[in-house]
């Protein structure tokens, strides 16, 4: 899950497929995620990992890093 998400972010959001992105890089502070990128990412995650995000889950804590994203997605799949 981490590597799929990492690859997506590099390819579609940063738009540099060869970019070396760490799973604990702060995505918001490094401006990788802005409002448009965030929505694209959510659409990708929902499709790829088969869940539906609730509006109150679109919070900075769940998108801090790739690790945080995966923790969130796993919690949705567990339900």
């Amino acid at each position, binding site marked *: 899950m981490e590597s799929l998400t990492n690859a997506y972010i590099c390819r579609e959001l940063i738009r540099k497929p060869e970019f070396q992105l760490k799973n604990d890089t702060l995505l918001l502070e490094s401006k990788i995620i802005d*409002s448009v990128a965030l929505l694209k990412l959510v659409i990708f995650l929902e499709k790829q990992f088969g869940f539906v995000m609730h509006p*109150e889950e679109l919070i*900075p804590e769940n998108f801090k890093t790739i690790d945080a994203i995966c923790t969130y997605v796993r919690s949705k799949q567990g339900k």
Partner: protein
Amino acid sequence: MTTPYLLHQLLTETARRSPEQTAVTFGERSLSYSVLDTLTNQLAAVLRARRVAKGERVGVYVSKSLASVVSIFAIMKTGACYVPLDPSAPTQRLAYMVRDSGIKALLTSTMKTTAIQDMFPHDCPLSTVVLVDCDLPAEHTSIPSPMPAGVSVVPWNEIIAEPATPLTELAVETDTAYILYTSGSTGAPKGVMISHRNSLTFVNWAGDCVGLTSADRVSNHAPLHFDLSAFDIFASCRAGARIVPVPEETSTFPIELVKLIERERISVWYSVPTALTRLVLYGNLDAHDLSCLRTIIFAGEVFPTKYLRKLMAALPQARYLNWYGPAETNVCTFYEVPELDPDRTAPIPIGKACANSEVFAVNDAGDKVTRPGEAGNLYVRGPSLMQGYLGRPKETAKSLVRNPFNTLFDELVFITGDIVTLDDNGNYVFLGREDGMIKTRGYRVELGEIETVLYGHPAIDEVAVLSIPDEILGNRLCAAIRPHENATLSREEVVAFCSQRLPRYMVPDLIDFRQTIPKTSTGKTDRVNLAHTFSKQ
């Protein structure tokens, strides 16, 4: 005093009338109108002492903060005009604007000084940088990045040591107040010059339309280089209302934005529809108390009726206003949205002319549109019309033309290029553009500007840029590229090339390399065919 005829007189008037009223709040910090008046006098005095003369262009390069409001009023108090530089644009683009407008003095903050070296080319030297650090605590130890040689840096403590005496007024209402850069179809952004009179025409009408009072708390969501900010800042100042700048990062998560509205008890909100759509979809409105919002205004693009309806259902106590007008005229028509029919899908009208503005549509035969259903190009008449595009007399003459319907004297009218029709109630309804300009998330984009930039790449022989509508992401920009024979070009390279020259919202989302770009029978690029191909992706 007499009725204010210059934008900063709105500030001095309000400061005189209600000095203790809060003018701006940003996070934990606030400035009263009297403190804002004093700070701007001090800053203006320093600028004038550093030779900022009437009519000069002074750059403002700050993120949303107290500094953004302080900077623009201070610059206008010297008789100069402010040029807001998009804090998120690539430095190359900013360097173009700096050179184009001849900026020699720049207002910024210690936190933002890193990019400045690259913004000022050798042929357009920077002489003065002023650090408007009113947002930083007095004991801050941050040091700005080093400046190019020959640049004098004025620290904030020098500003606040200045006497607060107001400067002698040198400007008249027809002097330029600010210059807003907008996408240019020929490949470079063009500066829309707005005079004090142009801006006040809108500000006076807008304040009355909304019924702004000193009890209001008005968000400032739009960046300074968007003309929406003129309402947030100047109309609020006129009424003695409180301005609440919204930090850029807060907009990323709609829930953060909703919390800010709730926390600051925002009463009037003005933004592009995209921001409101995101609030509706992801802001969890029902779980927050937004009863403070009494008026919601939107402009800049069509608001999909289904999301507007959801917003109105979630916040039924508010008034909803659709404002329309290009940067060249600011808002010239308005429409108050009534309760919507549950099965209405058609976009809402742009409405009727604002006070002190006149609009009319001209059909292909050159006659004014008078019957419902008839279509024409929308023209605007009145004192809100820009002075022109800075340094572009030919382009200016194409859009600011002699009014063909005035036989008494010569006057200018602005051709918007927006095709409109009339409905049965005399409201204008937007139909589309006559050219290659599109809106994406409220941003104005000339497809031609992106094409011209791409043609600048040595490995690109032919290119067509088009847009595919997307409800949530705005328009998706698609580029069909025919690379030079035998050249190897990757999507990554194209994206990097664009990112150095264009703001993020103008970098194509989809890129297709092709051996031929399809043509219609008349030899033009077959954009319909291309659009079909891209829609399937």
